């Protein structure tokens, strides 16, 4: 998959596919070669953000996806086809490689630690590789797979917090890793859908993680922050510190649950409920809202039913408990992860459901004081329609494609992991002894 990603970037065009519960977004990126702007106007590489340009963007209503997982394969495939074809049409180029993200699939975080003695005084790449290999693989459960594994922190003897230990002198090298495991079946389903669309998968990432990349600013990533991606069917949370994700989890509730609450409470179709939520929704009722009446209508033919009106306060009264429930679940997740002990406790709300008016006030009351609403980073060529909070994971995925953090530490497998008669071992022995 890494080779596939490199091949795609070599070819210059890659698609980003955010398969969400309520919408499927597809961006087509064109890579103009690395660091093309660098000499031109003094802009640095910016972690790969200047490398690419969005040349096609399309969004379509998602079908067959529930809780961020593929539920009906054929429907999902059709939705992906729609989005990809629209984006291809806008970009006027054929896309063969796609990087996708998945929100559901029950992500679970594991913290790993590994420690090795150094043969020589200085830390070399081989030592880092050995330290990474020394981490014990946790029991992630059957039918689960590792989605991300980042070395978060290196410690050399008694010095901790090293970003890059190579070249340092010491005796013992310890590494802390963060590993994110997800359900293998959900991933398989998504991969199958993508393959059915004649696309090659060049990478896959967790939606909460990439939303954090896009919505958190650099100092928040550095000092410690949680990104809450309030999606349609699932609300992901990812915690960042020192520019690494150290925790990710998801609550299986989202904006569609609010919609269904409205639909049930007001006895209206889901589409009308969605419209009511989008136009009149809120979480903070005021005295004015009691007087603002909303016609909800209906197609029953019964005059009484079709003339129904609700006050906005009633609508808020339906929405607020569900939003509170989601936020409290998230709060529980963050508490369980030990978010309280981070030096900075910034919380950034993003995702489509974060656009509910008054959400930041409610979230501040439940989650803590440092809450802000986040929108994705601006990248070149992104259409105005795709700059909203709902596109945080799509934009983050584009950034991830340009600069994958997984591959910061791309080392050879340590020699002792190879079979005993490996030629490489002989070469290594030869090199070490001569």
């Amino acid at each position: 998959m890494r080779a596939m990603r490199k091949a795609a970037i070599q070819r210059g065009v890659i698609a980003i596919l955010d398969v969400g519960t309520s919408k499927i977004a597809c961006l087509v990126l064109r890579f103009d070669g690395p660091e093309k702007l660098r000499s031109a106007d003094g802009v640095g590489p910016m972690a790969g953000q200047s490398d690419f340009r969005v040349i096609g963007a399309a969004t379509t209503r998602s079908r067959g996806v529930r809780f961020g997982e593929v539920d009906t394969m054929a429907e999902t495939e059709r939705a992906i086809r729609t989005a990809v074809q629209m984006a291809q049409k806008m970009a006027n180029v054929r896309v063969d490689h796609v990087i996708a993200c998945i929100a559901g699939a029950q992500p679970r975080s594991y913290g790993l630690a590994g420690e090795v003695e150094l043969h020589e005084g200085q830390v070399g790449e081989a030592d880092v590789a050995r330290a990474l290999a020394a981490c014990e693989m946790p029991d992630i459960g059957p039918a689960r797979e590792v989605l991300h594994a980042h070395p978060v922190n290196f410690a050399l003897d008694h010095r901790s917090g090293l970003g890059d230990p190579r070249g340092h002198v010491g005796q013992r090298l310890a590494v802390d890793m963060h590993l994110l495991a997800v359900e293998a079946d959900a991933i398989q389903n998504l991969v199958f859908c993508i393959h059915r669309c004649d696309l090659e998968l060049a990478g896959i990432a967790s939606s909460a993680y990439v939303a954090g990349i896009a919505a958190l600013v650099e100092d928040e990533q550095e000092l410690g922050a949680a990104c809450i991606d309030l999606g349609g069917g699932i609300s992901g949370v990812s915690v960042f510190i020192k520019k690494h994700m150290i925790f990710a989890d998801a609550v299986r509730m989202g904006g569609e649950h609010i919609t269904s609450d409205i639909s049930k409470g007001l006895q209206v179709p889901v589409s009308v409920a969605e419209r009511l939520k989008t136009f009149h929704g809120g979480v903070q009722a005021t005295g004015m809202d009691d007087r603002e009446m909303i016609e909800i209508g209906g197609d029953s033919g019964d005059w009484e039913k079709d003339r129904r009106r609700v006050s906005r306060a009633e609508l808020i009264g339906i929405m607020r408990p569900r939003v509170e429930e989601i936020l409290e679940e998230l709060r529980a997740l963050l508490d369980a992860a030990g978010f309280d002990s981070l030096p900075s406790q910034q919380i950034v709300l993003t995702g489509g459901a974060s656009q509910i008016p008054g959400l930041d006030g409610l979230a501040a009351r439940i989650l803590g004081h440092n809450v802000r609403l986040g929108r994705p980073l601006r990248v070149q060529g992104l259409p105005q329609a795709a700059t909203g909070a709902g596109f945080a994971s799509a934009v983050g995925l584009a950034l991830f494609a340009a600069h994958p953090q997984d591959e910061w530490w791309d080392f050879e497998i340590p020699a002792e992991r190879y079979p005993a008669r490996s030629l490489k071992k002989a070469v290594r022995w030869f090199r070490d002894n001569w």
Partner: protein
Amino acid sequence: MRPLGAATLVAPPRPAPRVLHRDPAPSRMRYKLNRLWLTPLVRGLARIGLPLVLIVGMFGLWLGDAGQRAALADRFEALKTQIQSRPEFEVSLLRIEGASPAVDAAIRTMLPVTLPASSFALDLGRLRATIASLDAVATVDLRVQKGVLAVQVVERVPAVLWRHAAGVEMLDATGHRIATVISRDLRPELPLIAGEGAAEAVPEALAVLAAAAPLLARARGLVRIGARRWDLVLDRDQRILLPETGAVQAVERLLALDRAEDLLARDFTHLDLRLAARPTLRLSVDAQEEFLRVTGRATTSAVNR
């Protein structure tokens, strides 16, 4: 303060009952075809290759029939003829300049075209070569000007008469033949040359004649001897033998001798100048006898002869 009930009328426009439209998802085949169409190679083939193949193929099929090819050629020929026979290209007059009447007549009879004709039908190069093949013509220019075929001729200038076994011919300064003359008396102003290889050495002959200008009143002509040297023939059967090289200098020397010694007034038959150091005279019979008589050495042999 407005009454509470009034505020209930603040209502947004009624949400139109939204009918869910047909699923916009493309079918699998349409999706694949769309992607195929976005492939650069396929696109290039369809937009350039296919029309090209179609046009070439149709043209080839059409030309494959021999009848069609012949018809096309006929149509082309007809069009060509139609254009060439337009009055703008018609040449109806022949104008000859710089030619004597005889040459003029000769050119008019020689030219193989019948006027009026289209200017495309005139092969000016060939006409020019034909006219230039006339001996009397030095250079010729042909041009078509507003329906007139203008022939500009420069004739050769006669320089000498050449008498040979078959008759007398006029030559120009380079020795090129101009015309045959019936009698030498028709062009008395031209000097006469004769002998084997005389025509090839006309420039030298002219130089000799120019040097011998004071003698021309008495000169009968130049005779080429053995195709290598000239004899200057004077009246009274006198003959001056000029050397192979330096004939002009010999003539000048002769003139100088004549001025000093009045040589040419003497009674001799041959004056041999071939050896520059020793001009030799052959006296006539009378002069010999007179000379012997004067010197007192008369013999009978001369008398007997």
